[in-house]
């Protein structure tokens, strides 16, 4: 089975490298990678649901906007997604449904406070038969 994501070492910040057989899987795995920086996902239940839809002018911009939307939903409302179902994805828009729950410091592990996905070292490209993306987060 293909690895979903791995963390990459960056002094002062935190980053992930996500993989996917296609773009929807890449976007879902990048989101899972982002959440894994925030908490241990194995302790998160799938009791809540949110729908997300974002747009951008480029594919790179879309990946950043997608992750920043999820960071916003977490930072403002505490939502942590565990199951990520991408509904529709084009070069300029993505819509998805996420199942997860509201973060509870008493129950969930507190890891990094991810503040934003950035354009720093951002890359998204097809490598042989799969897609790969690198994203650095402000923390």
């Amino acid at each position, binding site marked *: 089975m293909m690895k979903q994501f791995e*963390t990459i*070492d*960056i*002094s*002062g910040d*935190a980053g992930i490298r996500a993989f996917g057989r296609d773009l929807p899987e890449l976007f879902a795995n990048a989101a899972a990678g982002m959440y894994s920086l*925030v*908490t241990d996902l194995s302790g998160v239940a799938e009791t809540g649901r949110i729908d997300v839809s974002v747009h951008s002018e480029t594919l790179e*911009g879309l990946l950043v*906007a997608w992750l*920043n939307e999820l960071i*916003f939903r*977490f*930072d*403002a*409302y*505490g939502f942590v997604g565990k199951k990520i179902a991408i509904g529709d994805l084009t070069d300029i828009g993505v819509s998805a449904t996420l199942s997860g729950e509201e*973060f*509870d*410091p008493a129950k*969930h*592990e*507190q*890891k*990094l*406070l991810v*503040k*934003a996905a*950035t*354009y*720093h070292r*951002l890359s998204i490209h097809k490598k042989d038969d799969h897609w790969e993306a690198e994203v650095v987060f*402000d*923390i």
Partner: protein
Amino acid sequence: MKQDVLPRIRDLVEVLYREVPSGVGSKGKIRLGPEDEKKILLKGARWAVENGYGNASDLRHTESSGSIDGADPSLISSKAYERGRAQQGTLGSGNHFLEIQYIDEIYDEQAAGVLGLYEGQVTVMIHTGSRGFGHQVCTDFLEVMERAVKKYHITLYDRELACAPFQSPEARDYLGAMRAAANYAWANRQCIMHWTREAFMKELHASPGELGMDLIYDVAHNIAKVEEHTVDGQKRKLVVHRKGATRAFPPGHPELPDAYRELGQPVLIPGDMGRASYLLLGTQKAMDETFGSTCHGAGRVMSRHQAIRRAKGRAIWREMADKGIIVRSAGRETLAEEMSEAYKDISNVVEVVHKAGISKKVARLRPMGVVKG
């Protein structure tokens, strides 16, 4: 004095950890309606003082009196409002901290006298900012600037350095929003300082007068400001963005409060949680050579993951306790990420800026108790 606080340090750290919300997913104790949040964006620390968090005299020792002009709440997105609503009065996570320290060495007796500092004195340092609110403003405006870069045909070497000409509507809007975030941050630190005083009063059974916990100085560690500087012999108005840098204005600068006008601006340089922090003063040389700026902190030598790997199997809190430093942290991995050896030695960094003359050492502060997010 150190000996008064030392016997109570464990309880004090525990109370501060409880009273000042910190860490991932923590919510503030202050409940804000949309109108309150707008007032914070316009008034900054002044809002906090008007609502009972601290004293009017605190504002005199805060950069820009804790409230910068030109903030425009109408330029703030609903997302930033939503993110900021529950985070006023919270410490955050990562390298943000609240530290109880004592002065173990004075380098400039005269300046220390004017600042009311002496050896063995207990101080508190609070390092935090505009929290998720400021980050949402940044995220929102990066999109605006992305478009501006194309519109004004600017070549970028890093997409994160997105920008726009100062006179453009994009830049004007950004500054209005950024100033709102700066005010949010000043209010945040003011509230946290207030709860810190309350914790000391409660734990040491002392009145505010007995404690004498007066604000030395509050200075932004990431802000863009319009300032006057001399370039090639000519006075010019410039936008100075200090990120990873701290303002260090010289004696006589009109921006300084009366109490520090002759002295120069107090500069706070935090080190890692196990070694030291410093209080310095701004100099004319900083004005001449570095646009009135000095360093911001120690800087990392290890990435967070390297630090976590290095700390495997160790109890960092116990290593710190053995050195006489009580630490409390919300995140399990935070202490590993923030351990001393992950950072450069602040004393070496401060020695460089001192010898370069862009700020001068007044006092060294040693940690006794640390609250981390």
